[in-house]
């Protein structure tokens, strides 16, 4: 009887339960313990091993759809880089991304400014903005960063920016930090830049694209990998932060448990129906 009712269950009940399971922990956090995985530790260590004050290239290739997964890791990476007094050159290859990336950079910079630390746009960081062309832009940057991006996001002439004074092409950077939601993203940076210009790189990406990047991680083409919100939460843990990803992990935990339960229940219904017929 109960199984028959389960079989005819209106899917809106599933939606309601899932909604409550996501909302509940956001309002009342469970504070489940987070254990950093090896790829997240590698990501953290790759930035930690950079020389103090170096200039790092960061490509934020995403749009608002991936905000919960990718903005927290972007912020934590910026904080880690700025704590090491690194200068950050940011590019965007997704047309829906420049504004959200700019807001993310400024929000993180404001945190430092609120503590009395001086961070100046064009000196300590620059957002070069969006350029259409995907892989072609990546290859062009190998010939010259300033010639590929003559103006930055705020229309400043990049040839006059102090941060880019000693920057020519990829050889000017010790590391590429790529935060990617898909195409163009980590795969293209590995194929066009890492393998061609030998620029070491690390990646933070959406959970759905992680399996595609594991071969690059194992081959050493990626020196670290953050896998979705879980990776971002682990990275926050390694940096001693309790940010947006850590808060979101409780909700994601319960949602995963519920989906697993749905798979099991759906199959219990199937097996009981088969058993009834036999």
């Amino acid at each position, binding site marked *: 009887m109960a199984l028959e009712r389960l079989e005819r269950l209106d*899917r809106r009940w*599933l*939606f309601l339960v*899932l*909604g409550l399971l*996501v909302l509940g922990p956001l309002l009342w956090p469970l504070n*489940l*313990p*987070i*254990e950093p*995985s090896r790829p997240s530790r590698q990501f953290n260590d790759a930035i930690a091993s950079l020389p103090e004050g170096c200039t790092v290239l960061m490509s934020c290739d995403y*749009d*608002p*759809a991936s*905000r*919960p997964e990718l903005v927290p890791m972007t912020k934590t990476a910026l904080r880690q880089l700025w704590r090491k007094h690194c200068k950050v050159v940011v590019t965007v290859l997704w*047309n*829906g991304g*420049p*504004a*959200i990336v700019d807001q993310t950079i400024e929000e993180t910079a404001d945190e430092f400014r609120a503590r009395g630390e001086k961070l100046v746009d064009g000196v300590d960081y620059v957002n070069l*903005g969006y*350029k*259409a*062309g*995907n892989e*072609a*832009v990546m*290859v*062009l940057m190998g*010939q010259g960063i300033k010639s590929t991006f003559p103006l930055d*996001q705020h*229309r400043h002439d990049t040839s006059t920016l102090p941060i880019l004074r000693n920057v020519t092409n990829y050889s000017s950077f010790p590391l590429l930090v790529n935060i990617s939601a898909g195409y163009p993203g980590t795969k293209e940076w590995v194929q066009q830049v890492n393998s*061609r210009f030998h620029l070491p790189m690390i990646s933070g990406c959406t*959970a759905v694209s*992680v*399996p*595609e990047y*594991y*071969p690059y991680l*194992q081959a050493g083409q990626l020196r670290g990998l953050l896998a*979705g919100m*879980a990776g971002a939460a682990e990275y926050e843990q390694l940096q001693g932060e309790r940010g947006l990803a850590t808060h979101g*992990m*409780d909700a*994601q*935990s319960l*949602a*995963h*448990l*519920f*989906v*697993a339960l*749905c*798979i*099991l*229940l*759906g*199959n219990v219904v*199937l097996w009981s129906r088969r058993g009834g017929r036999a």
Partner: protein
Amino acid sequence: MRREIPLLLTAVIGGIMIASFFVPHEWASVPADYLQQCAVIVVAFGYVLGGANVFRVNLDAIFKRHRDWPYKLVLVAGLLVTLILGLFVDRARFQDPGTPSLWIYDHLYVPMNATMFALLAFFIASAAFRAFRIRSAEAALLAVAALIVMLGRVPAGDAMLRAIVDHAGVPHAIRAWRISDLQQWIMDVPQNAAKRAILIGAAMGVMATGLRVILGIERAYLGGGD
């Protein structure tokens, strides 16, 4: 000549791009750089062409009162408003704080974009209940791997396993097992092996297709059903 000239252009340009990858000489790199710059310009033109096509297709559907035409009207109106504000009101400053374009981005585009993606969670839950049915040994293997990865990726997986093990009086040696470690092994070994095979296979396919295009064997991109 309508077919020979495009074929010759493809062969020459393809040859230059391949040469620039392997030959560190300006005879290869200078033309390749120029072609890359051309590619960026062509992509930018693609946006104009794409925008014009959106107008053409949707205006046609609106005038002919096709199915769901009111939604197409909203799309065209949204596109027009954004375009006009960007071109004539905000101009080059369309991404600066306080501009109408940025207001549209922050208050319409961002929430709608995020909502579309967030809705996936609800459909995944529904699909997990109704469609993820174990009818064969392969499906069972897939389901077990999916459950382990799903639970191993979140802190609740280990917490749940620990609670079960603590209450079940399991031997001490097994208590050290963690579902996150098992998940990491699946990602590192079987998943990686399968993914690498797919990547290598796809890359070889791309190379073969590329060579066929450069050599003029593959001509479907020219159109005309050849």
